[in-house]
């Protein structure tokens, strides 16, 4: 280092503490006003209004009506996660083996839905699933059913549409994990006499597990708090926790109870995020585009 490093910039790599804080300051202010303060206020509502109490949490966790909604939410989120995993695996494996135009087409078919508005996709599923919609028309034309099935406003419809919306969040992490396994590994395994299936089972599959964990976690977390799709595609019988929160705020004006529901959700999400800390990787979604 010939020239004397600038006061702010040590060795061209490190900004000083003051400069770093100045660069981070706008973010910290915004995060406080739009993230920490709102969530803090809502939790405060749930715990301290009108007096310090855990009654709202007790109600959320013990009243059968709400317990059913929570268990349904967990069940639907789990089904969606498993379904997305089953659908994502073959696609991710084929993507990892493809190159050139084929890969470009496959990647585009994952990225286009990922970045298309959730509302647009939900609306599309409503059109497809409605009584005289495309799917019923096809079923009738093929003679499988005599009269249109009731598809919309059922749990099946919710599961199908949610799996569709969340599928890219499963495909991309698995694809990126598979992509990161050097070709040499499977070549080495096969030179040592392993069959292709054994190579897959003993080498490729274990190495892809971080991607699977990451995908499952993202899909499960997003499914738990999903609002748009269940609210529009599910009927009142399929109410999930997000719709319940919305109803408490917009119809019952019960902020404390909505706060308690959000508190339960946050505790659950934070717990999962802490357990799988390394699986929450956003770079997989921005890096792949």
């Amino acid at each position, binding site marked *: *280092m010939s*020239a004397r490093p*600038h006061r702010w*910039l040590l*060795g*061209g790599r*490190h*900004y*000083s*503490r003051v400069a*770093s*804080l100045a*660069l*981070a300051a*706008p*973010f910290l202010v*915004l*995060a406080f*006003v739009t*993230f920490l*303060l709102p*969530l803090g206020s809502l939790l405060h509502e749930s715990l301290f209004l009108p007096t310090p109490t855990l009654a709202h949490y007790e109600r959320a966790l013990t009243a059968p009506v709400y317990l059913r909604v929570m268990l349904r939410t967990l069940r639907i989120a789990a089904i969606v996660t498993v379904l997305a995993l089953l659908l*994502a695996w*073959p*696609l991710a494996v*084929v993507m990892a083996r493809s190159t050139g135009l084929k890969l470009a*087409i*496959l990647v585009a078919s994952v990225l*286009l*839905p990922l*970045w*298309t*508005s959730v*509302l*647009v*996709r*939900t*609306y*599309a599923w*409503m*059109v*497809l699933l*409605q009584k*005289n919609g495309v799917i019923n028309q096809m079923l009738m034309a093929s003679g499988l059913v005599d009269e249109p099935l009731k598809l919309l406003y059922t749990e099946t419809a919710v599961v199908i549409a949610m799996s*569709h919306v969340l599928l890219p969040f499963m495909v991309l992490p698995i694809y990126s994990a598979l992509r990161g396994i050097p070709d040499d590994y*499977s070549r080495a395994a096969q030179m040592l006499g392993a069959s292709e299936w054994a190579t897959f089972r003993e080498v490729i599959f274990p190495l892809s597990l971080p991607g699977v964990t990451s995908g499952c976690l993202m899909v499960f*977390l997003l499914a738990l708090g*999903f*609002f748009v799709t269940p609210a529009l595609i599910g009927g009142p019988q399929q109410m999930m926790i997000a719709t319940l*929160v*919305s109803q408490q*705020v917009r119809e019952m004006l019960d902020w404390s109870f909505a706060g308690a529901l*959000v508190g339960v*959700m946050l505790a659950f*999400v934070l717990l999962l*995020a802490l357990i799988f800390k390394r699986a929450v990787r*956003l770079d997989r979604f*921005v*890096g792949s*585009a």
Partner: protein
Amino acid sequence: MSAPRRTGSPRHAGRAMLGAAAYAVTIFLLLPTLVIAPMSVGPERYLRFPPNGFSLRWYAEYFADPDWVNATLFSLEAGVIATLAATVIGTMLALALVRGRLPGKGLIELLVIGPVIVPHIALAVAMFLVFEQLRLTGTLLGFAMAHTILALPFVVFTVLAALYRFDADLERAAVSCGASPLRTFRHVTLPLIAPGVVSAALFAFIISFDEAVVSFFISNLDRKTLPRKMFEDIDYNISPTLAAVATMLTLLTVAALVGSHFVKSRLDRRTRSAEP
């Protein structure tokens, strides 16, 4: 590239099945979007597939309806402000995270990823509570702030990726030649990360323009975004105008993705040429 292919063997059958499954999933992914576009140009009041005719009637309906147009313009305004804010704030933070010495770095990283892992319904309701008190509901400022925090994680990670790709020695060289930090940033760092920043801005815009949940809660009757308007209309009736709007939104997404891909391949070329 890997094992040589042997036609007719069970291995080949396994691969063919895998390929068929993968393409079936691709069709499942694309089907809803691809079905809506042709339906949106049908002449009838009821959505039909395939459409029995061609008409831009529902597109005309959209442009003639002040409610749709106003919602779109409002979404555009909020989107542009949120994009600028998220890009500038996110780039600054990414620089601080990579090049700086930030106390509590781990906590700040957690705060960045927060808006992604916290369910949007929780954030939406919480923002509604505070924004009401701050008189920010239904205001451009309120929407811009909400969309900025939601888009920031994607900006920070995109810019971080761009920063990690290039050699910090280039900056060090500029500094040892006597350039000030600002000059170094303007003439060395910024040009090298520019494609990443542009790509981040595109993502920020899509996120803001598509965001529905928070907008649903912080809007009021006369100031609403396009997704909020869509949400209302879907609840009432599945009209063909919505199909037209959905198709236009999809085309906008395609344009942004193609743009981002173009910018990214430039970034790749640039960083490769920057290597010794």
